[in-house]
């Protein structure tokens, strides 16, 4: 029945822990969290106590010391039930990767343990109103004055905005240098001149917090720079290369969740005197949904394993799994609504939410058009280097 992915005993345990948690705690909560657009604070707090918030953080920094595949398995299981909750969970990693990848010992020791224990949340601030796909167009500036950088500008649509205590933010230290003039900073909630815009109203993932980060002469200690001045763009790109399999895992989980609902409905819904699953038209739809979900899972696990093997350049595989798994999630959730028919369109059943939620996966952490650009650029580089 199952497919042998060669998971370790620990990986199976991670999957079981998150599967049970999602079933016990997230299923009863997801519709209300969505309806009330309420941040899943209680769920994340419990995940903290269960060692899941620090899954991807090294054990010497109070984490569990898991790798990319470990983390993907956890995200997948949570996403099977609700990606609003899973994005609030996974965005902590997106915010943390700049510190984990480029932080000094002092920065790691100061910022990572509370995030690992779930005592504090983390967020990543890259996108701006005029710098979405074109991350080079960032307008937020950071000017060094004495022992402080002064930040000015506004970040837009930041996941975990307002809820997080620790923010990794990309700002321009030298506008004349373009992408090479960007730098990355750790900004704490409560710093003078740092405030938040309103909570955005969204199509899906409504329980997650999406807000503006507003910097008005915000003073950031000089030692909060990540890497050196001018490394901001590299920090952002490496962060996204590392985090994209997590978004793919959201797609895999969401598609699986929609397939679960579609199959169980098709088995029990009777029309013309028989369950609708007896119709070949339905079976073929389900077969396509299941096959695509499994293909997305395979590619996602392969990408995560590539990252875990310390491969230097993971841009291509990381973009491929994000692109494929999130397109699959959109398709499978849409088909699930179709199979449930009128019931699927109603809020009483979870698939309408799944379909609404799926759309963001094709947009955030690089639109799927940008993923194709990344893959295209990698192909050009790869073939140019061949003799």
């Amino acid at each position, binding site marked *: 029945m199952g497919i042998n992915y060669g998971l370790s*005993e*620990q990986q199976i*345990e*991670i999957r*079981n*822990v998150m599967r*049970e*948690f999602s079933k*016990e*705690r997230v299923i009863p909560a997801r519709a209300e969290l969505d309806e009330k657009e309420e941040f899943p604070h209680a769920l994340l707090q*419990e995940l903290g*106590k*269960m*060692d*899941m918030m620090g*899954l991807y953080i090294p054990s010497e920094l109070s984490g*569990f010391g898991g790798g990319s595949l470990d983390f993907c398995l956890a995200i997948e299981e949570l996403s099977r039930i609700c990606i609003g909750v899973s994005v609030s969970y996974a965005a902590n990693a997106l915010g943390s990767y700049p510190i984990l990848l480029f932080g000094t010992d002092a920065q790691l020791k100061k910022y990572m343990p509370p995030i690992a224990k779930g005592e504090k949340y983390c967020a990543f601030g890259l996108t701006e109103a005029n710098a979405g796909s074109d991350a080079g167009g960032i307008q937020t500036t950071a000017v060094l004055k004495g022992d402080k950088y002064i930040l000015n500008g506004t970040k837009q649509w930041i996941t975990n905005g307002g809820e997080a205590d620790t923010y990794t933010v990309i700002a321009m230290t030298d506008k004349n240098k373009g992408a090479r003039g960007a730098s990355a900073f750790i900004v704490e909630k409560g710093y003078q001149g740092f405030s938040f815009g309103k909570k955005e109203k969204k199509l899906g993932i409504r329980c997650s917090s999406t807000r503006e980060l507003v910097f008005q002469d915000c003073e950031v200690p000089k030692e909060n720079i990540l890497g050196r001045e001018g490394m901001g763009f590299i920090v952002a790109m490496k962060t996204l290369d590392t985090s994209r399999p997590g978004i793919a895992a959201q797609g895999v989980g969401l598609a699986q969740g929609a397939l679960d609902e579609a199959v169980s409905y098709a088995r029990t819904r009777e029309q013309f005197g028989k369950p609708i699953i007896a119709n070949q038209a339905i079976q073929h739809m389900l077969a396509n949904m299941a096959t695509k979900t499994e293909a997305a899972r395979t590619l996602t696990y392969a990408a995560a394993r590539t990252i875990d093997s310390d491969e230097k350049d993971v841009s291509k595989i990381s973009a491929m799994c994000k692109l494929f798994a999130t397109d699959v999630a959109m398709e499978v959730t849409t088909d699930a609504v179709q199979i449930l028919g009128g019931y699927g369109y109603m809020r009483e059943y979870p698939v309408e939410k799944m379909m609404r939620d799926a759309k963001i996966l094709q947009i955030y952490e690089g639109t799927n058009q940008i993923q194709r650009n990344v893959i295209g650029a990698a192909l050009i580089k790869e073939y140019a280097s061949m003799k």
Partner: protein
Amino acid sequence: MHIVVCIKQVPSSIAVKIDPATQALTCTGSEFLINPFDEHALEAALALKDSAGAKVTVLTVGSAQAADALRETLGRGADAAQLISDPAFAGCDAWATSKILATAIQQLGGVDLVLCGKQTFDGDTAQVGPGLAEFLGWSCVAFVRKITLEGATLQLERMFEEGYEKIALPLPAVLTVGKEINTPRMASLKGRMAAKKAQLAPVTAAALGLAPEAIGAQSARTRLAKMAPVPRKTGGIKVDGADAAAAAKLVVEKLREMKLV
């Protein structure tokens, strides 16, 4: 403080069958879980451990597969677990189970508090908690919904159908708890990984110094004559109260029909 929690592994499916020959519950093939009320007892113990510091030991009388239930409690934060298992225990009733658990608790020594679920999900007798208190010679309060520890005194709230009773109780004591007391936590990842490795060698009747004739089927003080599922409650008759006068008329007619008025 040393707290002992007594748990039972029960079948998860409510579709268990009654064996017509033995009148026992047959549950082969079903999945097993910790008796839900016992999960609340464990959580109460772990909450006391978190707030006041305590060692938590979990005991169960059962077959070898009850080790799974014990591992789950270790994953949630229990410090030690004992699987009390012996073929001689087969067919033991609530009296014998209480005797076995009380003996194990005496053997552990230094136990201050014993927590049990108010009843099991399968047998439903609600006798083991009070029974082992009797064997230990300790005070027992059943149906507890709140526990606070003030020095060596427990401040308790005991549930009734309507309202509750406040009780101050010195240690040592045995308490049984209901689901109102807390929300059981889930096992942590590190806890589960560690629990997988825990050695849970069965504690036998001989290890407890119990003679086979003192426990098990032949020692049972009760004999199970018949077991039957509890009939489902029917919905009764619902009267729409929108029109009060018409509703009252309908109720009176029904009562007359039933010759109650």
